[in-house]
């Protein structure tokens, strides 16, 4: 189902809308959350994914399809919810994520984001995509290999090298 149709359905009948959204995107959110909560019980992962969709249910009206997509919105939401839950589970200080991006270090954070984006963009395709699929979306190597028609060990190799390249770029080397 197209994003626009799904958002229209969310407006008309939120419960049906959320069902369809979950049918389409539970896998995406699950892998993101699982990657962040690795080592935590499965039930924590499931609870967190459920919280992602509950937040989507409350916030879907914020989605601007001119600028983004449901897929992107959910991905960021899943990552944030997972970080929040991990902080709680590991007893680290829980700062609302929105807050951590405002305030005094905002400029520094923006700069970090830009530098990282530049570094990832500077990698060849599909190396940059492999890196993000692995470390943001939590896709298993097997799934990435199938998506790009590569061998599994090639994917791991590319991820390792890509990571090393990003490190050098961020440190000012080439």
């Amino acid at each position, binding site marked *: 189902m197209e994003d626009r149709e799904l958002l*229209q359905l969310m*407006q*008309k*009948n*939120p*419960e*049906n809308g*959320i*069902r369809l959204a*979950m*049918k389409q*995107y*539970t*896998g*995406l959110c*699950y*892998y993101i959350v699982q990657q962040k909560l690795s080592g935590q*019980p*499965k*039930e*924590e992962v*499931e*609870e967190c994914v*459920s919280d992602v*969709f*509950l937040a989507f*249910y409350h916030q879907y009206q914020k989605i601007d399809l001119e*600028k*983004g*997509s449901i*897929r*992107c*919105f959910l*991905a*960021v939401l899943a*990552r944030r919810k997972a*970080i929040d839950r991990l902080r*709680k*589970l590991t007893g680290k200080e829980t700062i609302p994520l929105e807050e*951590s*991006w405002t305030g005094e270090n905002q400029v520094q*954070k923006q700069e*970090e*984001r830009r530098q*990282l*984006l530049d570094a*990832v963009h500077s990698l060849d395709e599909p190396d*940059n995509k492999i890196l*993000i*699929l692995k*470390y*943001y*979306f939590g*896709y298993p190597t097997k*799934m990435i290999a199938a*998506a790009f028609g590569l061998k599994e060990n090639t994917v791991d190799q590319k991820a390792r090298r890509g*990571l*090393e390249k*990003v*490190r050098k770029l961020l440190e000012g080397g080439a």
Partner: protein
Amino acid sequence: MKKEFEEMLDIWTEEELKNFLPEQLPELDEMTRKRIEKRTLEKVKQENRRFSKKQIVAAVVCIVAVLGIAGRGPILAAFEKLFHYLPGVGVYVDEEGTQMYSAELIQDTFTENGVTVTLKNVYAKGIAIHMELVMEGENLTEGILEGQDDFDYLKEKYPVTMEYNGTEYELSSNSGEIRKENDENVNRYRRQIIRSVSNTAQLYTVRIAGFETPLVFRLTANEGTADPETLGVSQTKSGITLTASAEVTEDGIAVELYQVYQTEEIQNAETDFRRQVLIYGIDYGDEDASQDWIEVYRSQNYVENKDGAVLKTILESQEDMQNGLRFVVEGTEADFPITIHRGPTTVETSETQSIALDLPETGETKTMSEQLEFAYGTVEILEVSVSDVFQQRVGTGENTVDVPRRDVEISYRVVPKEGVFQMYAVSAEAPRGLANGVTSDWDYKENIFTFGTDVAEDQETLEATFADPYLWAVEDFTLVIDTPKQLE
């Protein structure tokens, strides 16, 4: 580097991520996906049921007409369901084969440092454990900083953990409620918690930071019954079963009432025992009409003692239960046997119909003849009117623009069909407008509902959706309870 890289990715926004979105979405095993879906929908439903005010207008005056023409329809087909009585929670109707669990409360309350903590409404549906934690004290937010949010402070001050499977887990609440004294000190804090586990039937220990005493409960499988009449003193009419019990407490006689449907026709129904009284006064502020309605309600719903005297209901004692209601009437054991009289109740069901309506010219009103047939009533579209064009300002800062819009207003009427279940209202929705969103109103004298939105200058049709009809279940019941505590 891997860790640092991941942490840097944590602060990426949609803008940064959008070029790296996967084209193929991963699939998840169906059982896990369904489990997550079920949990999420439960959370959504819980929120809708308890903490939000649904934008439906209850056409209370309809009851007079409805009762006047109420026929007794044919007996509806029996339908196989399992009914679970969960002490303290209510009656669950199984529709999906989910295993229910009831709780044995081993330690459900304590008082420490002037705060009384109570564990309530504990049960599990499949792997999802539901519970409520209530804290009561003189000033629970003592020490709060100026400007700090009450909920944030309470959540931080009283984190909750639960031990099971040999591990202690932190619990987060799905929703909460506070009560303030004199609009200042919080003296009641209620948290609703839902937690998924892998092995439901076991012992659980709940701890709240700052208190030594734990709360302990054990969950065991509740097998349920196919015959709700066995749940207590019951009566079944036209596929509706009313079950009741009563116990003598220090406040009076506490009555629990449950209404369940054994019919295939009424699926996913939610009986609303109280909105029929409350919504009128609260939503419309019409005290006179509200008073009239309360009188009607009281004449149909009351408890008599053995001598035929009506026992006064303590209104504050009313509490919603799953598929039921708990309330206290003034009385003692000497009043038994008591007789419970119940009139028609209001029921919400799931049914949705949409229609594309042709819009009249700008500034005109068009009489309509479209009708939408629902199982227990008909929605008759009466009129669609479109206002003159106005300019709606949208955007912010430099991007502000004026957009030509027109207001659309649709009026409709709900005509109930004859029978035991009679539709009297339905939610109506249209796509959200730029100016005022979706508006709705109800003229209770004419019994006409209206709703509206705003549309573009050149829009020719508008899709309207009517969903979740409200019905009257037009049956009355008389239950005699000989002795207290019959439900157990």
